[in-house]
Structures are given as C-alpha cells and as structure tokens.
C-alpha cells in the first residue's frame, strides 16, 4: 500500500514511486454525511410520533378533554425563546471555533449549555405542575401523546446538552485542538436539529 497523506482540508495525497496524486476532498465530509443520515432517521422517528398525535388530535371532538388542564402557553413561549437563544449561542460558538478564538468558544458553548439546561428545567417544572393537576401519561390519548412527543424531544435536548458538556470538559482540559473541530461541528448540527424540531412541535402540540 502506498503511503498517503490526509491534509487538514480532507484531500488525500497518494505518494508512490511514480509520483504524487492529489485527490480532492469530497464536498461533504463523511462525518457530516453520517450525521445527516442520523438526523434523517431522527426526523422519521418524530414523524411517526407526530402522525400518531395527528390521528388522536383530529379525531377527538374536544382537545384537551374538559377534565384535563390546558397547557401553559405563555411560559412555553418564553421557553421557546430560551431554546432559540441557545441556537444563537451555538452559532456564535461555531463562528469562534472557525476563527480560532478559544476564549469566546468556551464562553459561548457554556451559554448554549446553560440555556439548554434552563429549557429542560422549565419543561420539568411544567410537567410537575401538570401531573399535580391530573395530566398523567395514563390520562388518555391527550396525556399519552403529550408526554411521549414532548418527552422524546426533552430526551434529545438532554442528549445534546450532555454531548456539549463532554466537549466543553475536553476543551477546558487543554486538549482543545483541531481534532475537536469535527465533533463540535457535528454537535452544532444536532443542536440546530433539536431547536428546529421544537419549532415544529411547539405550534403543533401547544397552539393547534
């Protein structure tokens, strides 16, 4: 096998006694492509949940049922703003990553993680209040679809926050290098996906 050098841009330089051949990097790297495939799978997963929600929602004469509490719309609007702000912080962090500004990167990643955690905390407190008012997972299709759909999204936000925290710890231990660039870019893609998903779920579940 002839030696080959992988450049920072992903191009591959094949070295052989007959000379060197440079093969340009693909337009979309393997890592990004894998992440996109994963996000496509996630989209179909949520599409199935939304399909189930639509069946119950559209076939039900009263939604929510009269004996169950309404969802807190004003608080969730504010929480949506928190999640949108976290996406903005992530975008700024990725910009700092590309410009090599390590201090700004850590600060902005921290802001994104804090905002994501705040979103989860507000969701959790909202759920506790709803359970006290009688809206449980077993309170019929309304409770079941609400907790399944919003709960799955919450788990994804939790996964994104944990992923981000792990990367932040690695970065703060001084192992920040170009090798962290790909994981951070992929984490950013996942973060955007989770925020975009909420932009679809919030109107569907809370406002429809």
């Amino acid at each position, binding site marked *: 096998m002839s030696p080959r*050098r992988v450049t920072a841009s*992903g191009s591959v330089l094949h070295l052989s006694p007959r000379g060197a051949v440079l093969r340009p990097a*693909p*337009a979309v790297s393997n890592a990004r492509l894998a992440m996109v495939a994963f996000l496509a799978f996630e989209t179909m997963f949520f599409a*199935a949940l939304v399909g189930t929600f639509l069946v119950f929602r559209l076939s*039900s004469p009263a939604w929510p049922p009269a004996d169950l509490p309404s969802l807190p719309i004003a608080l969730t609007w504010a929480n949506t703003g928190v999640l949108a702000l976290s996406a903005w912080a992530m975008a700024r962090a990725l910009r700092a990553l590309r410009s090599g500004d390590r201090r700004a990167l850590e600060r902005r990643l921290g802001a994104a993680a804090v905002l994501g955690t705040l979103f989860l905390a507000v969701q959790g407190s909202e759920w506790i209040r709803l359970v006290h008012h009688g809206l449980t997972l077993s309170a019929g299709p309304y409770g079941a679809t609400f907790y399944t759909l919003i709960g799955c999204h919450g788990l994804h936000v939790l996964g994104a926050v944990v992923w981000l925290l792990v990367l932040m710890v690695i970065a703060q231990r001084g192992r920040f290098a170009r090798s962290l*660039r790909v994981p951070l*870019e992929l984490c950013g893609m996942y973060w955007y996906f989770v925020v975009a998903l909420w932009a679809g779920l919030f109107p569907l579940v809370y406002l429809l």
Partner: protein
Amino acid sequence: MRTRRLTVALAALAATAMLPADALAQGCAMCRTALQGQDDPLAVAINTSILFLVTMPYLIVGTVGGWIYLQTRRQAAGLVEPGAPADAGQDSVEGENP
C-alpha cells in the same frame, strides 16, 4: 450497447409500473370498512396522518439532496474549504509503517 440495454430495461420497468393493478390497491378490508365514511373524523384524521407520513421521506430526501448539491456547487465555485469539516483533524500520514 450497454446504455441501450439499460434504457430498454428502464422503459420496460416504467411500462410495467403503469399497468393497472387494482388487485394490489385494495388494502386491508377491515381498515377500508372502518374508514369508508368521508365525514367520519377518525377517517379524516387517519387520512391526514397518512398524507403527512407519505410526504416526509420526499421532504427528507429532497432536503438532503439539495444540501449536498449546494455544497458541491459551492466547493466547485471555491466558496468553501473542501470537505469542511475535514474528517481528519490534522495532517496525518498513513501507510508508512512497514
């Protein structure tokens, strides 16, 4: 020659796909009976849900395909660094070990 064979095969496949196939399009008898009423809210709900689920794969494939196409065009125009982010974080040499 090879291209012609491929074209003929594709044309035959397309022609076969257009043949009437009512027998295959009947669906489940129970579902059909239960959802026949167009005014039934459950029938409307299930039909809406089916339409939503049918559109999703097209939406995903279209979005991903469009994104890859745009990335390829941007790379060709020299607007982005090829393959960014690179799979390899830094220059590395492979195949030099004996």
